[in-house]
C-alpha cells in the first residue's frame, strides 16, 4: 500500500464564528496516510476548531478540506467515516460496553456475527475483553477511555480524531495511556489526528506536531526538530524550556550573526529569522546546551553569578544572572565534577553560537 502524502488536506481554510474574529487563519496542512499528527497549542489557538471542521461539526468559513482527494465540506459527519474520541469519552451511558461498540456497526447494517467478531477484536486490542456487559458508569476513567478508543476504531475508519482524550486522567494513567494509544496506532496503522495542549504528550506520541497559535500553524515538524530547531520564539517558548536574550543584530552573515544586547555585551548567534543588520531579535538557547566550566572550545563564553540552586536528583537546576538576564537557567548533570555550584559563586558559562537561535523579537 503506497502511502498517500496528503490523505487529509486543509487548503486555505479560514474559520470565524462571529464574522469579526478569525479563529483559524489561512490553514494549509497536509496529513499523510497512517500518520500520527498532533495539533498542539494553548487553549483558544484554533486547534479544536480544526478538528471539529475535519469531523464535520463545524463548517469552514472559507477554503476546503479534502479527505483522500475528495472535498468533504458538504458531507455530513455521519457519512465521513471518521472515528472520534471525545474529551469526556462521550460513551452512551444507557448502553453496555458491547452496545457502545456495536453502535457504529449496527448503523452500518453489519451482520450480527460479524459485529460480535469486530467488537471482540476491538476490546482485546484495548485489553478489555470480558467487559462487554458492563455499563460505562461501572468502569474507571482509564477503562472508559479505552472503550472510547475501541469504539472509534471498531468500524475501521479512515481517520481517527482525538480531542484531548487524556485530559481527565491522572498523571500516571495518562502516561501509560499515551504509550497504549501509540502502540495501537503502530499496530493498525490508522491515520490519527490528535489534539492536546500538553507538550510532553505531543512529543511522546506524534510523528509530526503542528504547533498552533493565534489561529495559525506556527511550525509543523517532527518532535525532535520542533524541540531542537524552533522556527520562531513562540514555538521555542511553548515547547520545552528556553533562555532568551533580546537584542539587535549588528554583524549579519549567512551562518552567523552578532547580537548586541541591551546591557551592551555582544553574543554570537545562529541567524534564523533575522535578515540584516539592525533587526530586532530574540535569541533562544535551550538550558542543556549551555555548559559551565567546560574545557571544550565554544564561541560564547561569559561569566555569571549563581542566584539559585535547585536539586532535582539526576540534574541540578541553576539560575544565573547572566548578561542582564536574571532568569538564565542551566541544567547541570549530576556528576562529581560539578560539586562547586553554590549560591553567589561566579561561574563560567559557554555555548556554541549554532545553538543560540536568533528568532523574531517577542
Amino acid at each position, binding site marked *: 500500500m503506497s502511502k498517500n502524502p496528503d490523505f487529509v488536506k486543509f487548503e486555505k481554510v479560514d474559520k470565524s464564528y462571529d464574522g469579526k474574529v478569525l479563529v483559524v487563519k489561512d490553514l494549509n496542512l497536509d496529513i499523510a496516510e497512517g500518520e500520527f499528527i498532533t495539533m498542539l497549542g494553548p487553549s483558544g489557538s484554533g486547534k479544536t476548531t480544526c478538528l471539529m471542521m475535519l469531523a464535520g461539526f463545524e463548517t469552514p468559513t472559507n477554503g476546503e478540506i479534502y479527505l483522500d482527494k475528495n472535498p468533504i465540506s458538504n458531507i455530513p459527519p455521519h457519512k465521513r467515516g471518521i472515528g472520534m474520541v471525545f*474529551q469526556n469519552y*462521550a460513551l452512551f451511558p*444507557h448502553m453496555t460496553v458491547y452496545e457502545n461498540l456495536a453502535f457504529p456497526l449496527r448503523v452500518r447494517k453489519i451482520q450480527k456475527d460479524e459485529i460480535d467478531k469486530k467488537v471482540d477484536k476491538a476490546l482485546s486490542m484495548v485489553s478489555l475483553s470480558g467487559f462487554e456487559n458492563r455499563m460505562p458508569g461501572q468502569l474507571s476513567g482509564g477503562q472508559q477511555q479505552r472503550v472510547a478508543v475501541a469504539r472509534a476504531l471498531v468500524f475501521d475508519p479512515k481517520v481517527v480524531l482525538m480531542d484531548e482524550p487524556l485530559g481527565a486522567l491522572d498523571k500516571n494513567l495518562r502516561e501509560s495511556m499515551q504509550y497504549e494509544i501509540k502502540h495501537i496506532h503502530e499496530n493498525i496503522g490508522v491515520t490519527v489526528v490528535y489534539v492536546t495542549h500538553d507538550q510532553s504528550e505531543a512529543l511522546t506520541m506524534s510523528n509530526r506536531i503542528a504547533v498552533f497559535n493565534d489561529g495559525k500553524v506556527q511550525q509543523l515538524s517532527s518532535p525532535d526538530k520542533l524541540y531542537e530547531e524552533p522556527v520562531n520564539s513562540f514555538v521555542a517558548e511553548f515547547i520545552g524550556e528556553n533562555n532568551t536574550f533580546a537584542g539587535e543584530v549588528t554583524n549579519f552573515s549567512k551562518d552567523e550573526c552578532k547580537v548586541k544586547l541591551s546591557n551592551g555585551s555582544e553574543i554570537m548567534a545562529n541567524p534564523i529569522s533575522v535578515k540584516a543588520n539592525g533587526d530586532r531579535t530574540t535569541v533562544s538557547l535551550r538550558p542543556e546546551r549551555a555548559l559551565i566550566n567546560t574545557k571544550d572550545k565554544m564561541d560564547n563564553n561569559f561569566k555569571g553569578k549563581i542566584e539559585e540552586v535547585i536539586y532535582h536528583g539526576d540534574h541540578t537546576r541553576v539560575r544565573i544572572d547572566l548578561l542582564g538576564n536574571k532568569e538564565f537557567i542551566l541544567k547541570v548533570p549530576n556528576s562529581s565534577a560539578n560539586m562547586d555550584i553554590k549560591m553567589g559563586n561566579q561561574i563560567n558559562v559557554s555555548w556554541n553560537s549554532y545553538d543560540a537561535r536568533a528568532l523574531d523579537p517577542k
Partner: protein
Amino acid sequence: MSSETQKILTTDGIPLEVSLKKAERKNKIKAFLLVTPLLLFLLITYIFPIGDMLMRSIDDKMVTKMLPKTFKAMETWDGKELPPEEVFEAFYFDYKKLIEEKTFGKLSTQLNYTKNGFKSILKKLQRKMKKFEDGNYKEQIMEVHSRWANVEYWRAIKERAPNYTSAKYLKGIDMYKNEDGKIVSVAEDRRVHRILWVRTLEVAFFVTVLCFLMGYPIAHLLATLPMKYSNLLMICVLLPFWTSLLVRTASWMILLQQQGIVNDFFVMIGLVSDDARPEMMYNKTGTYVAMTQILLPFMVLPLYSVMKTISPSLMRAGKSLGGTPFIAFWKVYFPLTIPGIGAGCLLVFILAIGYYITPALVGGASGTLISNQIAFHMKSTLDWSFASAMGLMLLSGVLAIYWVYNKLVGVDNIKLG
C-alpha cells in the same frame, strides 16, 4: 456477613451497632424536632380534614341516629311487603321527635338522595301529623300520600339503616343496589358519571400527549441554546407561573369566543366565512387548548432539567460513529430523556385529571370534567359524602396510575430537577 459485623466491638467492649445507634440517637431526635412544626401543621390542616372528608363518603350514621326506633322495628321486616304497624308507629314517633327538634329537614334531604320523591311526602306528612290520632298509624300515614303505601319507599328507608354504606361509590359509577341487593347499572339515559370519567381520562391523556409533543422541542431548545437566548426563553416558559390562573383562562375566553380574536383572524384570512365561525369554546376544544397551554410548563421543566445534563458530545459521538441525525437522536438522545418524559407526563396527567377551574370556565357542557361534578355536589346539592366518594375514586385512580407507572418504568427513573 451480618453476623460478622455484629461481632465487632468498640474499644470499650460495647457492640458497635449499639454504640452507633446511641451516638446517632441525638441527631435523630434533633432532626425530628426540626420537622415537628411542619408535621403538626400538615396533620391539622391536611391529613385530618381530608381524612374526615373521606370518611363522609361511607359514613351514614346521620340517618341512623335520626330514626333509631324505626330501624329497630325494621330489623325483623323482610322488605317484601309493606312493613307492619310497629314500623309505622316507630317512624311516626321518630319523625315527631325530629319535628320538635326542627331537624326534620335534614332527614328529607338525606332520604331524597336515596330515592327521589321523599321531600314532598315528608313535608306533607309533617303538616298532616298534627291531626293524627293515637293508634293505627299505618293507615293514617298511608292516607297522607299514596307513596307512603309504596313498599319501595320503605325499602329506601331501610337501606339507610347501616352505619356505613357503599352507595355513594356505586352512584359514582352509575350503579346502585336494587331491591334484591344486586348491584346493577342505572338506566342508560341516566349514566352521567361514566361519561364524565371517560371524558376526564380522555382529556387528561390527550392534554399530556399535546404537552409532550409541544414541550419536547422547546425543552431541547432551552437546553442547547447559548445562555443569553436560553435565559430569555426560560422566562417565557416561566411567565405563565407569574400570572394568575384565572387571568390566563379568562384571556383564553377572549381569544376563543365566537366573536373573539382567533375567529376574527380566521375570518380575515378567509379560512372561515363570517357566518360560520367555529365554536372553539364551551366545548372540549376550549378545554384542550386552555389546559394544554396552562400545563405546558410542567412538561417543559422536568424535560429541560434532564436534557441539560446530556452532554452535546453524545449526539456528536452518535453522528461521528455513522448514525444519521435521526438515529443519533432516537438511539442516543431520546433514551436518555426518558426519565424527564416520565416525570413530565406523570405530572401533567395527574394535574390534568383533577383540573377544575379551566374546564369550569371554558368547558361548557361537553367540556367539563369529573372535578366539576365534584364541585357541583360540594356547592349546589351539598351532597358532600357523594363528592368525597368521587374525590376518593379520583385519588385512587391517580395512585393506580402511579403504581402502573412504577411497575413499567420505575419511579427511580423519574427526574424532576
